[in-house]
């Protein structure tokens, strides 16, 4: 093992990268842009929902207005915008898409009891199930507050606010009330991009190394396979760490995600991802004859990991048999570890990090063996 030779390969990869401006831009600007895009898209779509509140009957004997209370409650919660409108106008707005739902409130005296009844009808635009769910949740929460206020009034205690009648204390173990999907997503993007780009770039450059004959030239020199593999890991690891740092900075400084992690730990995890993906890239480059055939590995290697490793949908929410597959994918462990450190602030001593790191080490070792067995291939 000669560090001078490993350093020579490392330096060469850095030099090649520096010349290849487009790849350099691809590796750093694309992940940052995608991260920012995810941030803005997610945040704007959550705040863009609005509902109309139509109050059908007003009880002349009571000063209590359920519509007004609901508007106040929705306003306070802030997850959807709400506006009180007459029926005709509300329906017109639903038709042309200005509002995604209408809440009809009918507050009327009931026969045989002194307590009036509140009838609620919610009409949803309904094309986007995610939007529908968000509106239903917001309206339900708002109605709970209306009911509590109404309860206070019917008990003859109008001076009491709903908070005084029913107190719900919300606290968060991790995250917080302002915690959103972007906070959840940023760690996954760091893991995903480190894996994706390093895999693709290693596979292509090793393919070139094989087809141009430079690998044969290396094999005719007194360098051994592990030195080649190590040089590659250092070279691509270096760029993967810069990439992780760029994504992290964009997420923390521009998107202002809630970041509790330790930078060195993020680097360690990104580094381990690199070890795995460099070696997987070297291994799979054996089975490609040209660049297009490398791209053909993307749906095979990258897409399943994007879907099943918890990048967007958490692994726990998948059906059992898919979870089995998830647990065979290295990225699952990387993303879990990144979330545990970046969101929960866990350190290497916490099982949420070290257990994942151990599995990643095992994956890395496995891929190193695969790669070093195939380094010489097509040379022989």
């Amino acid at each position: 093992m000669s560090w001078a030779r490993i350093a020579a390969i490392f330096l060469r990869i850095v030099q090649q990268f520096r010349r290849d401006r487009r790849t350099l831009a691809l590796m750093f600007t694309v992940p940052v842009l995608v991260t920012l895009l995810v941030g803005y898209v997610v945040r704007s779509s959550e705040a863009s929902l609005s509902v109309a509140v139509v109050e059908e009957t007003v009880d002349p004997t009571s000063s209590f207005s359920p519509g007004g209370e609901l508007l106040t409650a929705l306003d306070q919660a802030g997850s959807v915008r709400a506006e009180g409108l007459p029926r005709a106008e509300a329906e017109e707005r639903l038709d042309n898409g200005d509002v995604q739902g209408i809440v009809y409130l009918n507050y009327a005296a009931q026969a045989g009891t002194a307590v009036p009844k509140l009838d609620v009808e919610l009409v949803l635009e309904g094309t986007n199930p995610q939007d529908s769910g968000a509106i239903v949740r917001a309206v339900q929460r708002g109605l709970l507050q209306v009911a509590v206020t109404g309860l206070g009034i019917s008990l003859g205690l109008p001076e009491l606010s709903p908070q005084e009648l029913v107190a719900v204390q919300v606290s968060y173990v991790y995250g917080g009330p302002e915690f959103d999907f972007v906070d959840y997503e940023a760690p996954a993007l760091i893991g995903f991009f480190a894996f994706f780009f390093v895999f693709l770039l290693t596979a292509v450059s090793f393919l070139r190394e094989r087809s141009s004959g430079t690998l044969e030239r290396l094999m005719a020199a007194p360098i051994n396979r592990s030195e080649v593999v190590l040089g590659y890991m250092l070279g691509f690891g270096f760029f993967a760490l810069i990439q992780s740092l760029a994504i992290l900075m964009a997420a923390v400084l521009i998107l202002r995600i809630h970041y509790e992690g330790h930078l060195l730990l993020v680097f360690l995890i990104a580094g381990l991802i690199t070890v795995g993906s460099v070696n997987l890239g070297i291994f799979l480059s054996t089975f490609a004859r040209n660049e297009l055939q490398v791209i053909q590995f993307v749906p095979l290697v990258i897409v399943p990991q994007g879907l099943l490793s918890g990048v967007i949908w958490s692994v726990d929410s998948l059906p059992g048999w898919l979870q089995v597959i998830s647990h065979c994918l290295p990225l699952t462990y990387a993303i879990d570890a990144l979330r545990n450190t970046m969101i929960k602030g866990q350190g290497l001593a916490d099982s949420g990090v070290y257990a994942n790191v151990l599995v990643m080490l095992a994956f890395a070792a496995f891929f190193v063996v695969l790669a070093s067995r195939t380094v010489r291939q097509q040379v022989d």
Partner: protein
Amino acid sequence: MATEIAIEGQGLSKRFGSIEALRDVALTVPVGQTYGLLGPNGSGKTTFIRLVAGLVRPTAGRLTVLGQPMPSRRILGDIGYMPQTPALYLELTVRENLLFFARIYGAADRDRVEEVLSVVGLSERADSPVYALSGGMRQRTSLACALVHSPRLLLLDEPTVGVDPPLRVAFWQYFRRLNQEGVTILVSSHVMDEAERCDRLVLLRDGRILAEGSAGELRQQAGAPTLEEAFLRYAEDAGELG
């Protein structure tokens, strides 16, 4: 480990699946000579060179290179190998390619890099990336990469393909000088007039040695005025025997 024999092969055979690339080849190359491998495409020239370079293991037979039984990693640092296609890093400059291979051989000496650059006539293009070079310049860069660590044995697989005649002459003069410094050269070619410049020649066909000797001896034995005709005679004889 001074030895008078640079390459000694006995009963060397190499089989790739069902293809027999080399059949029972025996060859002795003395130190300080330029030895030519001559034959058509697919005759086994490249396989023999790759065998000596330690890139493939023989299916049968024994091979000793610079006194070491092959395969031996230890001896690889004393061998310079120039593959048939200019195997270079296109994004790197000429000088960066040379420095890279020098470092791999543990011989990163900037003076030596400049010296080799001037030998191949590329001092002025040293900072050009390889992708901007013509085919001949790439071939010269490739030769420089094989020379940069001052090897004792130089393996050249068709080194002058795409090189202009004046430069080709310069190459051969340089090879001569290397011989005088004790460097052994094993070179493959299918250009007959180039073969004339070798100390000794091996005529290869279908992985078998047809004949061996200096260009003059080969012509004389075959009773042919040119090396080309001599080659055809030997091939005919072998065909009759086979």
